[in-house]
């Protein structure tokens, strides 16, 4: 199958620009990048129809050989509508995080300054907590081991059954 090089390059540019934007800290920028990547992927799927033909409408004596491949079109159509939904959802997330945090100028930024430290601390806490459970039972078992210093009087021999 032949490819339209123009569309491949366009897709690559949109994808690259989208990824570049998505790597920023602002959630709004992430969403803008997401939209670009979404458009790029739609082009990629659409590319798979190969050479464009007539619209896939079977009226007026149009035959199956003359039309564009409708399968990618069906995929892209659902993708477009889902994109709308996800965009709205992310916007709601952005608004919500801003509203809750009331951070003003930095409202839609994802926290990352203290992330590393916080995450390390959190992991440490989890490890400590699970280790504490294990240690608790280990101590209980060790406590039952006889130490010579505390050894009580010898048992009588006649005890032996």
């Amino acid at each position, binding site marked *: 199958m032949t490819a339209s090089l123009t569309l491949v390059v366009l897709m690559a540019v949109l994808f690259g620009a989208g990824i570049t*934007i998505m790597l920023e800290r602002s959630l709004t920028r992430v969403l803008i990048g997401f939209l670009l990547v979404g458009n790029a992927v739609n082009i990629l799927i659409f590319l798979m129809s190969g050479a464009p033909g007539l619209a896939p409408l079977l009226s007026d004596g149009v035959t199956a050989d003359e039309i564009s491949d409708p399968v990618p079109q069906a995929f892209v159509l659902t993708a477009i509508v889902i994109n*709308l939904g996800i965009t709205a959802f992310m916007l709601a997330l*952005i608004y919500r995080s801003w509203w809750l945090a009331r951070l003003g100028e930095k409202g839609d930024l994802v926290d990352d300054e203290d*992330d590393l430290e916080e995450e390390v601390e959190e992991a440490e806490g989890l490890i400590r907590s*699970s280790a504490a459970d*294990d*240690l608790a*039972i*280990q101590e209980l078992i060790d406590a039952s081991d006889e130490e010579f210093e505390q050894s009580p009087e010898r048992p009588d021999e006649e005890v032996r059954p």
Partner: protein
Amino acid sequence: MLFSLVVFGALSLLTPLLTRLIGRRVFLVIALLPAAVFGWLLTLLPEIVAGGVVTERVEWIQALDVSLAFRLDGLALLLSLVVTGVGALVLAYCTWYFRDDEPALGRFAALLLAFAGVMLGLVTSDDVYVMFMFWEATSVLSYLLIGHYTGRRESRGAALQALTVTTFGGLAMLVGLVLLTVEGGTTSIAELVANPVTGVVGEWGIALVLIGAISKSALVPFNFWLPAAMAAPTPVSAYLHAAAMVKAGVYLVARLAPGYADLEVWHPIVIALGGLTMLVGGWRALRQYDLKLLLAHGTVSQLGFLVLVTGFGTRDAALAGVALLTAHALFKSALFLVVGIVDHAAGTRDWRKLSGLGRRMPVVATIGFVAAASMAGVPPLLGFVAKEGVFTSLLEAGTATADGGPAAGWGWLALVLAFLGSVLTVAYSVRFVWGAFWTRPNCAPTPLHREPAMVAASPAVLAAASLVAAFTIPFIEPLYTSYADELPGPEEYHLALWHGLEPALWLSLAVFALGALLVWGRAKVARMQASLPPLIDSGRGYLGVVSAIDRFAAAVTTAIQYRGLAGYLGMIVLVFIGGLGVSALVNTAWPGSVRLWDYPAQPFLALVMGIAAIAAAVVKQRMTAVLLVSVTGYGLVLIFGMSGAPDLALTQALVETIVLVVFVLVMRRLPKQIATTHPPVHRFGRALIGALAGTVMGVIGFIALGARTAPDIVDGLAERALEAHGTNIVNVMLVDLRAWDTLGEISVLVAVATGVASLIFISGRTGGAPRLDERPNRRNRLRPVPETASSIGGARPRLADVEGESDAAAEAAATRQTWLLAGRTLSPRRRSILIEVLVRLLFHPAIVVSVFLLFVGHNAPGGGFAGGLLAGLALVARYLAGGRFELGEAAPIDAGHLLGTGLLLAAGTATSSLFFGLAVFESSWFETEVPLLGTISIGTSTLFDIGVYLVVVGLVLDILRSLGAEVDRQQEENELEQNGAETEVRA
């Protein structure tokens, strides 16, 4: 078999309810079930002893050859009798052990009963995978039962240790079982034993299965979890960790021994680890203060002993092994139950605080004495009978040289280990009896609570059975031999209390003598024990391993998911570039021919879109970036339109417009500049990652085009579409041929709409957009007060000014001709009469067109998605022109109702065909001649498309209602508060 398992399951489910009704007496009721099964199994005894086998089989997963197959032979029957018999007694014991106010008693009873059923399934199933399922279920139930006291740290730690260790072993076992069944070509355990898998696969398979067995039976190096499991209530220890669950490993060894005992990996694992475990457990038991832990370490020791003997691989050893298994189940569960009574009566299990219990609890002391004597192998008890058998059979194996049996060396080694282990067993048995019941001269008698007499019934029965079985051993033996005879060896030896003065008896006497020596010299022994480093301390090893894994996981996580979302995304993209980039480099399938463009306009279009995309990455202003992205979106519309995809062009145009509006709605509340402080990845690095990702993606797209060799997918679709009464193939695919996809998609839309609404509305998401008569500060519907101007108009007027001004404005508004219903709620400064007129004129035609698009979609561009989006866009226009109350007046309906109705309609048409004997989504049509319009064909797919339409309208409405109207309201509220605060300050 299957029937009793089902009853076990059903009764377990009912047990919590029953417990609520009758309290702890529920244990007596549920004990009847294992007791009944025990009785039923006894009726099968004659048939099995005569060499018969009871089987049951229900096909289950035929593709994998897995069936619910059950098989009762001698070994399975013996284990089943132990499981149900001890199970019934332990359950009955619980009646008096617990009090009614014990927390989570219903859960406990249900789990214990379910465990009995699962264990029964484990020992009777003949399919390896069904057996494995039960195997894992016992691990889970054991976890839940050990963790019964959820509030205690040690309980949780012990439960998790047991689960981790046994499921680790179970995983190894599963791999082993897969190896064996694939190589052996059957999933039946009986067949796998009858026709053993040999060679490398057999060795590896068995080694892995044995890892499962020794982890379950707490052999070295997994021996640490069993003492820890003593954090469970005592009945659990008696049943799971003495009589039943830990025997699963022994059972598996016994089950496989007839087929696999002569493999090379078998004896090193079974005899070396079994013997080592016996010594380590006994050694550790000898230094315990806590009676329960003494028994636990003793159990570890005995389990090693059992594995050693049952796995030895001769007929006589197997005979002695199953006898020992029975003896152990009887005496060890009795001992645990006795410790439970002592614990409750004295309030402690530490024998340093116990004194004089023997005199004051003579019955309990007698039971404990008898059971401990059986453990030590004292005549005339079952423990003695079994141990005599062990010594004889191992001596036999050691002296027999060219018998074809296992090498003599293993026989001598096993004998020495068993002998030394037995000496330790005698010593710690004495320690137990002496510690629990003796009167210590320098210790005041321990104060005791009175315990109900019946609590001693179960251990009494178990201890008595140890005694009775020893005398009735000739009657019991046929059950044992029906299994043992499967193994090689002369069928001469019989179990008996008295064999005459033979070597085994002298060995037993030597064991007692050395045991007495240990007891006599126990001060020295204790000093030695304390001074020696722990022999095998795998408990600490486990802690080290687990903590190392935790730390490694934390380190990896913090290394990969560092610096928040952006850093993590970057890591994902880098992996994507690396992985797919490498695959692209080694690719060979490039497209045969390359076309530069499809039509001359394409490169210009692409250039504009590309520049817009790159510009979007560079600009600082958020709104500009959004508009630039829209350029690429509208560019797509043109590309779709010019490449034969009118449906896509239509949908993309509508969606792009709505996205733009929604973006603006939210952006007006957020700061204009994009903050760029401290970017996690440097600007250059970001651009580099983006460029690489784009390049990889482009190459992949190029390769994908070249890789496609199959004929067009369009083949045959045209005919299908015509069959489905439609000429627009894309729409027919959406609503008919691939309707499942679409149903999934609109479900996502419903979820998204709900998510958007619940994120914005603080409490309660139902209801429509606000109506005029719901306005909070209305004075008069005919003379409403205009809303204050928003911050768009620069400096906000003060509240007093607004009030003064508003009356005049309201007068003006009331006298003016209203084009939109809620137009008068807006401040005159925000109103545009031109827009109001346009919207007024266009709204209803737009709705009509949207319905038209919906219905022509099957044969022309359009359909539910496009129609719904157009209707949504009409609502957007009403909202933009008239504000939030206008939206409520334009669509006076709950968005949730639209979504629900749409989804219901779509799902309803999908399933309604079932009522007519058709498949899900199979379409049917109703055709009729309509004057003027010609032939109209209404199919179920049309109804489905109406559902799609409603869902899309509902989605847009929910978005507007939330991100538009509700955001407006919150902003107004906010401003009112601020103004109020200012006024107060001034006052």
